[in-house]
């Protein structure tokens, strides 16, 4: 496929490179120049307080923020001006905070719905293996699922398509600890499969066990970055940033 040759050509470049990203919602200026990058195969987490611009950053990368400027390069190509469906077809997938499970479709239909864009996605069986609850409920309507099951479905749904960058927005929000654990285990198992994960998460304790690197956002900018190994010496700083 052409994207394979493209990724060979641009091996030195990160899979996702965001630079000088600005975004607006009407009059309100949400992002003031966000810079970060995600290399292929990494799990990267965006940290920050509410309103720091984390979700907006993901929406920009998905082409969903109404007005955006700057540069978002995915797999060596500029995507800042592309519509959302074109970005999806290049291999970017977003699991939004509100999950967006289709209530009038069954679990199976929800899983089968996203178009396959490239080889390399998980099979249905592999998805069911990650989230056994989904197999049991495959004929249930999306609207009848519990919050945890909806989250599993929302994540499972983007694994089949062959998208290489998975962006997960607060996947653990409001879920029972056992489900949070299950989702963490699933993400850990995705990494060796070649998926790259960009995570937005409030639950720092959970994210710290998963991510390779962290970026901290505040007031629409990235203000700090460190690798997982540097976490212990940066804990005080991090507490100050996040107010935890």
């Amino acid at each position: 496929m052409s994207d394979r040759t493209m990724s060979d050509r641009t091996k030195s470049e990160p899979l996702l490179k965001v630079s000088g990203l600005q975004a607006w919602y009407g009059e309100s200026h949400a992002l003031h120049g966000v810079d970060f990058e995600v290399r292929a195969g990494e799990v990267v987490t965006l940290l920050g307080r509410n309103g720091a611009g984390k979700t907006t950053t993901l929406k920009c990368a998905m082409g969903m923020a109404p007005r955006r400027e700057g540069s978002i390069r995915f797999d060596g190509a500029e995507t800042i001006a592309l519509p959302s469906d074109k970005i999806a077809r290049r291999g970017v997938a977003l699991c939004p905070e509100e999950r967006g499970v289709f209530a009038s479709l069954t679990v199976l239909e929800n899983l089968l719905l996203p178009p396959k864009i490239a080889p390399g996605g998980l099979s249905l069986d592999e998805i069911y293996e990650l989230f056994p609850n989904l197999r049991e409920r495959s004929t249930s309507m999306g609207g009848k699922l519990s919050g945890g099951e909806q989250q599993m479905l929302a994540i499972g749904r983007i694994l089949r398509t062959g998208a290489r960058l998975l962006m997960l927005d607060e996947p653990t929000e409001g879920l029972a600890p056992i489900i949070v654990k299950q989702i963490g285990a699933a993400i850990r198992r995705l990494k060796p499969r070649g998926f790259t994960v960009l995570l937005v998460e409030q639950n720092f304790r959970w994210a710290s066990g998963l991510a390779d690197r962290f970026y901290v956002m505040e007031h629409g900018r990235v203000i700090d970055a460190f690798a997982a190994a540097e976490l212990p010496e940066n804990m005080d700083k991090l507490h100050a940033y996040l107010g935890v």
Partner: protein
Amino acid sequence: MTHALPSSQPTAARPKPAEFLAFAVLAALLAVAPLAIYPFFLATALCFALFAAAFNLLVGYSGLLSFGHALFFGGAAYVAAQAAKVWAWPPELALIAATAFAGALGLGVGALSIRRQGIYFSMITLALAQMGYFLALQAPLTHGEDGIQGVPRGKLLGLLPLSDDRAMYYFVLALFLAGLLAIHRIVHSPFGAALKAIRENESRAISLGYSVDAYKRVAFGLSAALAGLAGGAKALVTQSATLTDMHWTMSGEVILMVLLGGMGTMTGPVIGAIFVMAIPEVLNRIGGPNFSQWMTVIQGAIFVICVLAFRRGLIGELAARARRTL
């Protein structure tokens, strides 16, 4: 746009005994209905039922409330009437022409109107339909207020004369059932699943990689084509094509039929259409022609009751009670 359609995806094959049962019961009832009810009335009612089912494909499954579907129904009626009467085409060719005309028109109207959403979408479809109405009123081809009268029904495939009302009815019944099956197939295909997803959460469907405009255009075209088949059949049944079929009140009536029967259900629009068609007949029987002047008032009252008391429509409410799709 073909790249946007998921070609290789099987949708969950869900056995729906209730749905098949409903379809079989409906078909059986309609097959024996001419024994009790005047076939001409039944054939006309089935044309409207198919029209309502086609409209439901758009509003019920794609969430697009077109307020201009009379354009396709009425426009196709003119095409069928013109083809059968002036060009002396056999009925099957006249219907194919009517369907193709409405489908092509639908793709065009769809391409223009889906650029806007909600009320603006409805207003654009209404405006375009009104343009069609005035064309039909003014153009020499459509004969203004007179419409095209005395359309011959001809012989089906050159063999079966449709001049007999009963033969005409069974031909319309076959068209109607085929139309309904086609809609069922569309709704339960991967394409249909994508339509439902778009109806539910458009931005989510886009970000999953769907070019939703392409889907909406195709849905609009399919709905218009089926509405055209209904309109063409109606022209043959009533042997005329008139302005009434293109008037905006026709667009309103089909909304009433679908709402009354149950939006997004398979059999609802059919029941709704037959119900709406039967009201004036019943009123006529009870109180004579004077009484039927109250038609619009009664329709209005039914509409209000429907929206207030059972918003899912007759079948929609039943289906919800039985927790099944009907």
